């Protein structure tokens, strides 16, 4: 599988770029929307959590907009993760035109969904960084490590995308199940709340969520300028290996039938 992905790398990359360019095709501002959307999210969160909810102070973060920075630092990676899975679910059915016509390996289209979600993440995270610096967050050498948890999280997204994408060809209800499951997972990830606010009893549930270690690691590196907890990176790597292997075997087992059904 890695070599097929490598062989189709330029297709994956070009298609992900085209996605970014054409998502807002036909609109007046076009590509600019890719920037406006994350900006508006940051603005809304700053207002809601800064003014309405009272300015919840988080140690080590700027007094103004600190909570909004915390929220976006977890929310943007989550968006990329859930986007990868959501779009992975329709990667085969949505690209039926290609799959029926050309002998392109199926996984290429899941990889393309993940690549395009990751590109959006890069844009929004860069914006967040600029705004955070403006609000008074200190830069740090630890930021250079941010790609590690992000890439691992997207690898998990790729693995889950392979699984749900394959199943969705045969059972179209999978798409709906995925949406509900992602909503539950979102609230089981410390994005809107702080880990210390979680009751002890719920902790194991949170830890069983693959997004939790990733968001924790990103928070530590980006906000608090320290290395993530030791367990997070192996946990992420483990999740990535397991999901990708499951997805690979599932896809391989059903490969012959996918194009019959599409």
């Amino acid at each position, binding site marked *: 599988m890695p070599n097929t992905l490598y062989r*189709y790398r330029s297709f994956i990359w*070009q298609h992900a770029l085209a996605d970014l360019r054409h998502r807002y*095709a036909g609109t007046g501002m076009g590509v600019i929307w890719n920037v406006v959307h994350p900006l508006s999210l940051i603005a809304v969160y700053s207002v809601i959590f800064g003014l309405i909810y009272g300015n919840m102070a988080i140690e080590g973060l700027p007094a103004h907009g600190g909570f909004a920075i915390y929220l976006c630092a977890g929310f943007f990676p989550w968006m990329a993760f859930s986007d990868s899975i959501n779009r992975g679910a329709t990667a085969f059915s949505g690209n039926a035109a290609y799959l029926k*016509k*050309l002998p392109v390996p199926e996984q290429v289209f899941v990889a393309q969904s993940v690549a395009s979600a990751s590109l959006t993440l890069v844009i929004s995270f860069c914006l967040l960084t600029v705004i955070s610096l403006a609000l008074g967050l200190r830069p740090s050498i630890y930021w250079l490590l941010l790609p590690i948890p992000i890439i691992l999280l997207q690898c998990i997204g790729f693995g889950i995308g392979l699984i749900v994408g394959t199943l969705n060809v045969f*059972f*179209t209800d999978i798409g709906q199940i995925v949406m509900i499951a992602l909503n539950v997972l979102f609230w089981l990830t410390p994005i809107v709340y702080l880990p210390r606010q979680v009751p002890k009893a719920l902790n194991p549930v949170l830890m069983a969520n693959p997004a939790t270690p990733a968001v924790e690691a990103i928070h530590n590196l980006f906000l608090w300028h320290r290395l993530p907890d030791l367990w997070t990176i192996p946990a992420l790597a483990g999740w990535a290996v397991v999901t990708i292997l499951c997805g690979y075997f599932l896809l391989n087992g059903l*490969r012959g039938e996918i194009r*019959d059904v599409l």
Partner: protein
Amino acid sequence: MNHTAPLVRATNLSKRFKIYPKPNGRLIEWLTGGRVQRHADFWALRGLDMTLYRGECLGIVGANGSGKSTFLKILAGTLTPTSGSCSVDGKVMAILELGTGFNRELTGRQNIHLAAQLLGIGADYVNQKMPDIEAFAALGEFMDRPIKLYSSGMQARLAFSLFAFLEPDVLIVDEALAVGDISFQRKCYRHMEQMIGSGRQAVIFVTHDLHAVTKLCTRAIWLRNGHVELEGEPPEVVERYQRFMLNGEEGIATTASRRPAVSLDESGVPQSGRLARCEAAVLYPSGGAEVLGLWLELEDGTVTQMVRAGKPFRICYALRFVAPAMQPVFGTRVTTARGDVLIGINTKMTGVITPDYALGDVEIVRWPVMAGLAAGDYFISCGCSLYDDPLHFLAREVDAYRFAITGAAATGALCNLTGAPLLAGASCTA
């Protein structure tokens, strides 16, 4: 010029599709580990054998659902066979289901690059071929406009140019040219002839334009129910296929003896060789008469389903009256598949006085056809109406019978001359 090793070899190729009547049938099968079966098998291919050599153009004919598309998809590598093997010694490119593979937001040029990436072809190679592709497609400035602005003909131009110039070992052309305009079609045919002529490439040509098969292909196969019914010289395969399409199983049987002995039943209707009602038929409920059968007769009375261009023949049909009728009007009509009416005639127009008929009477009407119909497929309508009110039909069958005129080139024209053109000879006194 290696003719010894086949470029494509399909051996005992079979393909089964599982048909699940209910969407959760598959889930039940999975959960029970296959102990409960909830699907029906559909065999699109059953033991198909085929070989293709470089320098060949293989025509594939067959009715809808005969397995043509499934076979081509296996060849192109998008479907996996259930059993048997299919090996290809080279690159296959298929112009299947035109246009669906294009990204509608991207320009023609970008789509060429995209398709090349999908086919695993290097960018350098594409850039090198780009001038050829552009020149052949002749799309002008549309080359740099998004596909969504293209007409289907333009998409056909782009697709054919793209696949033809990326130099596949096997080019599969599946009805792709039907949407292009005539001059582009002509260009495509010429290009395919060159590809075959080079001896390095091969073409698989699938079309319902049977004349094109006889003209372009070096060999033809007729697929029926997922296997090769007949393989051989294109004219022979096409004729047998055409016969079959016109008259079902009987058509195959009559190929053995081209002129079946005409045996008539007591009312004078031939027992065999009548045209079967075709799929396009619109049959109206009987208003007092019913059509017993329709057939074509040559001048010597031979019943036939196909007529050579230029030969006079008769359209004949028998009607039985189920109610008395006074001096009814008989009529017939011959149209092309597009609906051009070539012949439209009735007994009133021709001044034939018809008798009165009693219940149970049978009448046979014969229409001599002198028109020099060009080679092609035609549809016959027949009927019978009241003398005073020609729109009050006693019997009416529209486009119910199909027949073919065979022979000389189908030029797209509907009629032929009655002989060769005459030249007065040059009179030049220089």
